[in-house]
């Protein structure tokens, strides 16, 4: 291992507190730190204002405080082609995409990684809450210490090659401590609000945003028995298990989204949070990545998450011949959603994950979930 001062680390800086502190910690450890801001989306409004301007300005202020060089790089085209196109395609299919997983896979840890390497970097660092451990010949990705912030769910597509070149300086710290460090050093971003939601939509209205790209096709909301309960604004605006925005009144309820029929443009709704139709006992997933570098050939048990910030559930994973996997849940799960990621863990180690395609119950596909 080279001396830190001869080790160049490119830090992906978003203008938020996490990546600011990541850069600070690396600088304190003596690395040759270079801050780079990625511009992935052009949100310039009619007045010529774009939020990226403010974020980059924060990157500049923090980098000047840390006395490290800063640059920007534009990946708008790659983001559009690899992430946004996928995002729209999934909605068109009636599924619920996870653009963050795709962005990490295609942009941050691919296009951006390549860019960092072309600058002579030894490592790429980000402010993600995850840890990388070098164990003999292999690299292991571990959950972040702060279990509330652990982001391995979004990083499930990282390969061994990528893991060998990444640093996550915040993986072993609590978020609250990150804020404290930022305040102790009076970083320009110390009190900046965390960004929420999908990065390219930001604080804007999701429905309005999506309607600019996909034509909304209103249709019927029906029970599984075919009783019309009202109108929906377009299937893409709804996700499984959702309660808000259905507007179904009358006795009974509350009502939840339990499925979609894209062909007939029907949104299925059912009564009760624990509506039986929302529960499943297995799934099939594709686009598998094994972050461990070991592709399983035998059935094994582990834990899994079907969405971000969910508690782990016990599962049995069986590799299928085409590289996909079948996952059987120890207990029935509510609102497992096609298009989202299923991510596997062995204790603290993130094994990898894939994209949920089919949902099963009693050995049969649930065709109504979309």
């Amino acid at each position: 291992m080279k001396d830190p001062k001869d080790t160049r680390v490119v830090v992906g800086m978003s203008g938020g507190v996490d990546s600011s502190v990541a850069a600070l910690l690396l600088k304190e450890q003596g690395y040759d730190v270079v801050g780079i801001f990625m511009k992935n989306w052009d949100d310039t409004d009619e007045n010529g204002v774009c939020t990226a301007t403010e974020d980059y300005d924060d990157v500049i202020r923090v980098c000047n405080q840390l006395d490290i060089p800063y640059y920007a790089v534009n990946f708008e085209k790659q983001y559009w082609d690899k992430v946004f196109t996928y995002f729209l395609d999934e909605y068109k299919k009636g599924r619920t995409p996870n653009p963050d997983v795709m962005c990490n896979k295609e942009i941050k840890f691919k296009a951006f990684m390549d860019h960092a390497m072309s600058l002579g970097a030894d490592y790429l660092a980000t402010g993600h809450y995850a840890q990388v451990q070098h164990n003999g010949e292999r690299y292991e990705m571990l959950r972040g210490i702060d279990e509330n912030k652990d982001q391995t769910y979004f990083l499930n597509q990282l390969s061994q090659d990528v893991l060998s070149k990444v640093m996550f300086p915040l993986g072993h710290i609590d978020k609250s401590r990150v804020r404290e460090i930022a305040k102790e050093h009076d970083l320009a971003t110390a009190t900046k609000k965390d960004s929420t939601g999908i990065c390219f939509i930001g604080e804007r209205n999701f429905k309005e945003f999506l309607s600019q790209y996909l034509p909304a096709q209103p249709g019927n909301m029906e029970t599984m028995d075919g009783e019309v309960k009202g109108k929906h604004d377009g299937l893409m605006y709804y996700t499984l298990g959702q309660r808000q925005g259905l507007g179904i009144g009358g006795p009974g309820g509350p009502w939840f989204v339990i499925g979609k029929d894209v062909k007939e443009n029907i949104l299925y709704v059912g009564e009760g949070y624990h509506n039986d139709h929302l529960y499943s006992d297995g799934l099939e997933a594709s686009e598998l990545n094994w972050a461990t570098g070991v592709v399983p050939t035998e059935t094994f048990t582990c834990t899994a998450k079907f969405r971000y910030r969910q508690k782990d559930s016990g599962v049995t994973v069986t590799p299928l011949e085409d590289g996909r996997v079948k996952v059987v849940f120890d207990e029935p799960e509510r609102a497992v959603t096609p298009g989202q990621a299923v991510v596997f863990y062995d204790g603290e180690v993130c094994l990898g994950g894939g994209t949920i395609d089919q949902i099963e119950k009693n050995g049969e596909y649930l065709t109504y979930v979309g």
Partner: protein
Amino acid sequence: MNTIYFDHAATTPMRKEVIEAMVPVMEETFGNPSSVHVYGRKARKILDDARRSVSSFLNANEKDIIFTSGGTEADNLALIGGAKANQHNGKHIITTSIEHHAILHAAEYLESEGFDVTYLPVTESGRISIDDFKRELREDTILVSVMYVNNETGVIQPVAEMGALLEDHQALFHTDAVQAFGTMPIDVSALNVDMLTFSGHKINGPKGVGCLYAKEGILLEARQHGGEQERKRRPGTENTAAVAGLAKAVELVEEEQRARLTQYKLYKKIFMDTLKEQDVSFEVNGDRINLPTIVNVSFPGANVETLLTNFDLSGIAASSGSACTAGSIEPSHVLSAMFGEGNERTRNSIRFSFGLQNTEDNVREGAEKVASIVKRVTKTT
């Protein structure tokens, strides 16, 4: 790290003589030039001397010199002030698609105010055509503004020819000579211009000061409202020290221009020869009629952001187009005008500009570093 500056078209280091001309003004001559006492008179004398020396260099009249805060303000005053004061004669303005944003954005503003602006195109050579200009010139054209030398490519525009064509036309003729100043002959009557802009910090003078030459008798509406300084065309207490520095920088240009040109020609030759020796594949953008101080080079297969970041990390300061407010490099409007929107060259071209920070040795060393970076990044992509 040893750094090499190839960005003199962005800004230049101040000459020692310039600083020496400014310091006594800051230390001793603090009076307000408009004051009716000895302090004011002393300060006023600084301005008078500067005005005399600058006007003599331009072959102009002292009364035609308006000191401003820089090139942008001078361009805005010329374009907007000239258009508004002459709109009773028409609303048509001609400029080019390769102007500095100080002109382009001022022109866009005038369009929003109801003026009709024609933007002359350029060919791949980076030059506008006189035929296009003749075709677009109308009876109701009130203002023509064409830069003397383009700041991204160094390509010289046919300003004197246009000046001659406009001799008997009502239109005011302005040229932005910010980039030309210091290397091109600047004689306002030979160029036949009514207005001419230049800036202090591009000629080894101070930042925050510039000048608009505006021929006596032309109508010009002030952009600011305030006192009666600069013959009511530019209100605001004069930046005496900076003006003294600007005048000194102009004097130095006058004394050294020929020697510097010879030097810069050599630098450019060394730079280009080194790239060729190192077997780098490149093409020069606009290489026909241009300044020895600027070379704009396209590196096929490379990408501007990767190049510039690598250059800086290796101590080479160069630039390309203009950075957007979010830091990423926007395709250059000048190269887009030359080669078409989306052309590869708008995404792989770098401007290197030479000046006082350079020596034959550091130009060679810089070119070698540039060559090795270009070879490395074009190999990986």
